[in-house]
């Protein structure tokens, strides 16, 4: 057992280098800025045409919805929420992994995050933008959305501060604002680097405006670093609060299947789980398309897969706890909802959800699976499917069988529901593609800071300060 010659043998006794091959600082600049400076490949345009087609389908479906009203959807009383709020909760959840990677892992000094944080934060912002569409359009008359904002108006009315729906608006808009600032602050030094290397006059002007005239000066870095820590510290509890508040939309009601105290932690765990699924999907595509395998390494994917596995177990715990509490509470309505979920009209969705969220992630116990990019990609897609179904099951199966049998109703989505669903995925991936073409997908300044020899007398791999 002396020599290990196979390529996939990893010595876990030493921390693997965060950036493979120890590239020079100039090479980092070159390779990360390359996608923004080169005319994109045919593959890129092929991908963009697919996402733009999806976006167009969504735009048509949304146009019909706005013109004729939300009667175009399958929603009807008692199933007043269906695809709309499912998509909202799903996309908000997707965003959470981005903040987790950029803020929480930053606070825990998990320096492997540098390779993936920028893309994950961008994903957060795009996901929250996608999510924000749904509360607006589910109003039916979206121009009345401003009624939820407490501004003086001719009715002399204010909002009802006791309502979780008001909290939701505040939480999501705060989350979007803080995520955007966090992302932008991280981008400023990189934008300055882009400004200094570009030869195009127009690009230089744009980068100069966006980088605000950053000078890479240490008297700037000194304050900048502190602010970055503060923002990470603020974003960390924020991300936990946002999905808790989203879950209050359900948990504060009295509907069986919604009225449970496990919802806030359950939603947060589910959000991180689904978000990591989406981060894996997006990053596997980005590292492949832009040849960033040595920056977004298999070690990154391995670690993300471990977080995914952990959160999958947390979600599984919630799946177990829900029926247990329904049974233990002795409430026949609660128990009936559990039974109707597992055996009723939407039973297929329920069991697919269990398979995708609980059973399939168990494959990630195996190191071979975690380091097999193709398998990991498929698993991440299945997790996305499973987590979308989770929200669908929570919302629809609680509503379609409520207290009064006379109001029971089977919900069937229409072509417009699916159109908007496709469209919002199109929007998300279009934004991801545009982002990866226009801005550095990896933080150059942070990546430089974790290469070997970046700091004087710095023993690589050991902690500092």
């Amino acid at each position, binding site marked *: 057992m002396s020599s290990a010659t196979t390529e996939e043998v990893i010595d876990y006794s030493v921390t693997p280098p965060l950036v493979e091959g120890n590239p*020079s*600082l100039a090479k980092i600049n070159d390779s990360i800025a390359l996608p923004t400076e080169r005319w994109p490949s045919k593959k890129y345009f092929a991908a963009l045409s697919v996402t733009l087609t999806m976006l167009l389908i969504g735009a048509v479906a949304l146009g019909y919805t706005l013109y004729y009203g939300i009667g175009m959807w399958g929603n009807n009383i008692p199933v007043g929420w269906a695809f709309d709020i499912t998509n909202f909760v799903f996309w908000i959840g997707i965003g959470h992994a981005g903040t987790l990677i950029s803020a929480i892992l930053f606070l825990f000094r998990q320096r492997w995050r540098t390779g993936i944080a920028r893309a994950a934060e961008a994903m957060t912002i795009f996901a929250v933008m996608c999510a924000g569409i749904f509360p607006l359009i589910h109003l039916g008359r979206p121009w009345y959305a401003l009624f939820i904002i407490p501004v003086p108006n001719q009715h002399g009315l204010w*909002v009802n501060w006791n309502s979780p729906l008001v909290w939701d608006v505040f939480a999501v808009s705060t989350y979007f604002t803080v995520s955007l600032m966090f992302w932008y602050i991280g981008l400023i030094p990189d934008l300055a680097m882009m400004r200094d290397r570009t030869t195009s006059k127009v690009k230089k002007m744009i980068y100069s*405006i966006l980088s605000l005239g950053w000078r890479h000066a*240490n008297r700037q870095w000194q304050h900048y670093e502190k602010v970055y820590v503060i923002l990470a510290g603020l974003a960390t509890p924020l991300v936990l609060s946002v999905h808790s508040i989203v879950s209050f939309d359900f948990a504060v009601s009295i509907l069986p299947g919604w009225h449970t105290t496990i919802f806030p932690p359950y939603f947060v765990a589910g959000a991180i789980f689904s978000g990591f699924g989406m981060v894996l999907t997006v990053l596997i595509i980005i590292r492949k398309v832009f040849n960033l395998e040595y920056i977004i390494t298999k070690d990154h994917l391995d670690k993300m897969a471990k977080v995914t596995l952990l959160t999958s177990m947390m979600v599984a715990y919630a799946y177990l706890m829900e029926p247990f509490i329904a049974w233990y509470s002795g409430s026949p309505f609660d128990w009936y909802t559990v039974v109707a979920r597992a055996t009723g009209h939407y039973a297929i969705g329920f069991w697919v959800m269990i398979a995708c969220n609980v059973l399939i992630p168990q494959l990630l116990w195996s190191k071979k699976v975690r380091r097999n990019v193709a398998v990991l990609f498929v698993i991440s897609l299945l997790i996305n499917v499973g987590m979308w179904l989770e929200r669908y099951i929570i919302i629809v199966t609680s509503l379609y069988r409520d207290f009064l049998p006379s109001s029971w109703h089977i919900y069937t989505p229409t072509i417009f529901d699916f159109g908007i669903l496709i469209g919002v995925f199109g929007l998300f991936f279009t934004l991801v593609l545009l982002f990866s073409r226009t801005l550095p997908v990896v933080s150059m300044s942070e990546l430089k800071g974790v290469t070997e*020899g970046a700091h*004087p007398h710095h023993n690589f791999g050991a902690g500092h300060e």
Partner: protein
Amino acid sequence: MSEKRLYGLAAIFDTPEKVVAAARAVAGRGFTKYDSYSSYPIHGLDSAMRLKRTRIPFVTLVAGLSGAVLLVLFTWWTNSVDFPLAIGGKPYFAWPDYVPLMFEMTVLFGAVSTVIALLVVWLKLPRNSHPLHDTEFMKKVSKDKFGICIESDDPGFNETETRRFLEDLGAESVDSVYDEPVDISLKQKVLDPKFIAAIVVVAVVSSATTYLALNKMLLIRPWSSLNAQFKVNPESRSRFYSDGIGMRPPVTGTVARGHLPDPITVSDNLAAAEKYLVNPVLPSPHVMEVGQRDFNTYCSPCHGYFADGNSRLQGQFPSPPSLHTDSLRLAPDGLYYNVITNGFQGVMPSYARQIPRKERWAIVWYIRALQKAQNPNGPEAK
């Protein structure tokens, strides 16, 4: 044009070790107006440059706390003072409900203020006119080199000496950076034709857009959907019913609530009917109040407040008789009821539509009270 001026000397170093050592030496030499440059934050550079800890966290603390406090004040004022909102028997100031938003506002205010404080107050950005911009020095630093720039404003600065000092520290190259201020004329030219043309274009475009938005766009769907509802609008033809009338006449014999038809009408034998009618309403303070209110509203304009015919409209209409004559005092309750219901000889109209039946009987009680009050020993007392 002002002359170009030496801003400072910019030295390039090729490793982080060298730049940290150089920064320590520059600080040790007593320079204060200098800065180190690198495209990522280098650990140990702050202490080498002898920089003090940043005070930005205080901004976050104060702004975050004020966010929470302002939220509480705002929720309290809106839901307890300005428009008290009763929700499910909860107190107006239901503070546990505000806790999630207190947290959100702490984060929002803290984060926004911190970022603004960093960019605007501490770093004085945006500033794209710094002399170091667009120099070879900045391009190198931005890529893979490290730099130190000592400003000429520093009291210890001497071009040749400082250059040698930097070269001795192991600098790869030392460049002079010049400040070339751009002469921007701040003189206002209000009557400049270009400016006037721009104003006119802006005015025309903005008013046209406003006009189109308010007068055209709002009248097309979906914004007009409030006007395009499937309902019967007044003075419009119904497309649902064949006769075009949207408001359907009620089924024959339909009676409105509280408006059962009277058992007697003018065509009946009045005198006979009046005799058999008994006031079905028992007198009570409330009945008397209702009677007084209705009498003052409907009867007093002609009959006067005391039913004596001395009224506000006296002389403009045929004066009604005083109700205090002996014959009227002796008349049965049914007479009064009948007259209110059906009117009297074409002079007094029917009040059946205005006054519900029970209230007519209450008026009768009030008239009786007025008669007693005017003359306690009237003929009916005997």
